[in-house]
């Protein structure tokens, strides 16, 4: 397919179709409505089904049913809607069901606002619902990457039998960029067949029971150990990140994800022209977080600056990665405000010139 100018939300929706997804359940919420709108006309064209659910609670439970029946399925929502979906996300993690969930984050808490935000980071990366589970989370910084990660998310979901979240800030959903999509992106060849799915039991395999209930403590602990083993594998194999200006020395390492990393990159490029030695570390997988890679990247730096559209959520993972090895500084905006390149550059200069206070322990 030729390059095409697409909105982030539409690129995500089309990417899901190219990855073989023929089923979408969702509920309208700003700022991601273009995903359900696009799929409501596009899915029937390819023999798929779009269902507008009565609520996000119902939508996510429809995912539970469809995924349990062995088909690729997508939903998308935005922060308050994602909170409502957490019931089924926890059940799907427990029942080990592969689904892809897109969260185009808006500012919170509560109803908050409809402007861009990254304030769902902790909810997304630390589980989100009840119980000991994690969900792989991918944070794209461009429309092309949002499409690529959406297609990849289906493979990760199927490979590990887990929900996977594509976590975009409001900006990634609304901005338009050129995108190139394959006509068809077949599932990765190494994916195991879904012999566990409820497709009607003819006696040729164990009876399929899609379930997260284990009343016996020993059995439930064994199930939890199995899940944790799977998360270890995910942490080992699925870390994704990108660095810029990692060659040579740098004094300051900026850590940012999503569109904030784009802003940071503009600011860094400008500062480097002025001879400032600044590099960028961009986590792409937010769970699993690239702790080791970040720690290695920070070794060259004198200080680290975290930029986020939140009050400091990924900041916690940066501090987990670095401990007290480097002073960590923070700059965040909330309420739907973006960080401008000038604002980012000013904060970088403040840190470089010793005019910034590092993040305190309390």
């Amino acid at each position, binding site marked *: 397919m030729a390059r095409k100018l697409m909105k982030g939300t539409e690129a995500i929706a089309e990417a899901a179709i190219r990855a073989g997804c023929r*089923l979408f*359940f969702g509920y309208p919420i700003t700022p991601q409505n273009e995903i359900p709108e696009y799929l409501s006309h596009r899915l029937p064209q390819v023999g798929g*089904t779009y*269902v507008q*659910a*009565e*609520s996000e*609670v*119902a*939508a996510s*439970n*429809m*995912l*539970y*049913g*469809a*995924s*349990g*029946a*062995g*088909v690729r*399925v997508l939903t998308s929502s935005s922060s308050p809607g994602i909170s409502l979906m957490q*019931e*089924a996300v926890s*059940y799907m993690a427990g*029942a080990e069901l592969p689904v892809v969930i897109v969260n185009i984050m808006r500012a919170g808490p509560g109803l908050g606002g409809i402007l861009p935000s990254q304030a769902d980071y902790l909810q997304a990366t630390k589980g989100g619902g009840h119980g000991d589970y994690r969900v792989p989370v991918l944070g794209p910084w461009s429309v092309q990457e949002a499409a690529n990660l959406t297609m990849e998310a289906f493979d990760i979901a199927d490979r590990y039998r887990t929900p996977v979240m594509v976590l975009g800030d409001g900006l990634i959903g609304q901005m338009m960029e050129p995108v190139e999509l394959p006509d068809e992106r077949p599932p990765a060849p190494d994916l195991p067949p879904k012999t566990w799915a*409820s*497709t*009607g*039991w*003819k*006696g040729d395999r164990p*009876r*399929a*029971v*899609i*379930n*997260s*209930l284990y009343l016996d403590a020993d059995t439930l602990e064994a199930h939890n150990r199995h899940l944790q083993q799977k998360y270890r594998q995910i942490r080992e194999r699925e870390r994704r990140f990108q660095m810029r200006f990692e060659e040579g020395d740098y004094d300051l390492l900026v850590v940012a994800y999503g569109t904030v990393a784009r802003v940071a990159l503009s600011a860094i490029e400008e500062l480097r022209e002025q001879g400032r030695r600044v590099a960028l570390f961009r986590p792409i997988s937010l769970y699993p977080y690239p702790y080791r890679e970040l720690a290695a990247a920070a070794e060259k730096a004198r200080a680290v600056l975290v930029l986020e559209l939140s009050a400091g959520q990924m900041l916690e993972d940066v501090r987990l990665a670095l401990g007290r090895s480097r002073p960590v500084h923070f700059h965040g905006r909330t309420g739907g405000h973006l960080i401008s390149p000038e604002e980012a550059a000013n904060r970088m200069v403040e840190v470089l010139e010793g005019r910034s206070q590092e993040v305190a322990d309390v």
Partner: protein
Amino acid sequence: MSSPAVLEETPAAASERTRAPVFGHPESLRQVITHYCPGCTHGVIHRLIAEVLDELGVRERTVGVSPVGCAVLAYNYFNTDMHEASHGRAPAVATGIKRGRPDLVVFTYQEDGDLASIGLSEILHCANRGEKVTVIFVNNAIYGMTGGQMAPTTMPGQVTTTSPLGRDVSLAGHPLRIAELVSALRTPAFIARGAVHTPLHVVEARRLVRRAFQYQVEGCCFSLVELLSTCPTNWGIPPHEACAWVEKNMVPYYPLGVFKTPDGGDRAPRPLGRE
């Protein structure tokens, strides 16, 4: 004209015939001991569903959805692929299964707390979309699994652990009539209410369950059968009294019958000024 031959049954054939089972275990029900309390009628309803699945020959393409409630472990009892849903969401889960694989026969098995309280939104919208699934709704007027709390279907004045003085309809409202509520929707459907507290009622309930699945198998419509059931444990009375309690207290409020058939259309309102 010769007289018709009288076929005498040989003693061996008679013995064979009398030893042949006339009442077997449905293939759609697993041969396991259930956790249901003595005298509870869940077992009867399980059997009716299983017999119908056998009769229709759809066991191998059926997926059931069990609820949260007494029947939470129903996935251990039906001899089909099963899903265990979160509380009240079985109709949403069933929607997902059926839309993902329309070739499957999908049913939910739900109870009053699950369907009539926390899952009211899911059941109404599933029915209103006309999802081609079958819902078996077991109404025993109480929360059984959690220990006998008041349900939306608890009878006026009925004592439960959370209505110790009896259900006060001025504060808790009147019992929800699900069959009536769902049959008010315009979307074509098969909606009926039966009971299982006497052998005659069991036979009638079986017919309703069969019709409900038949409509689905034909790709016709959404179907829901509400079945009045007993809970001797939480009602605090012996099983035979529980059956009498259904007849005396529930049947008058929850009338039995077919409320809606797919060709039924709208129910006509009474003209204004003529109430």
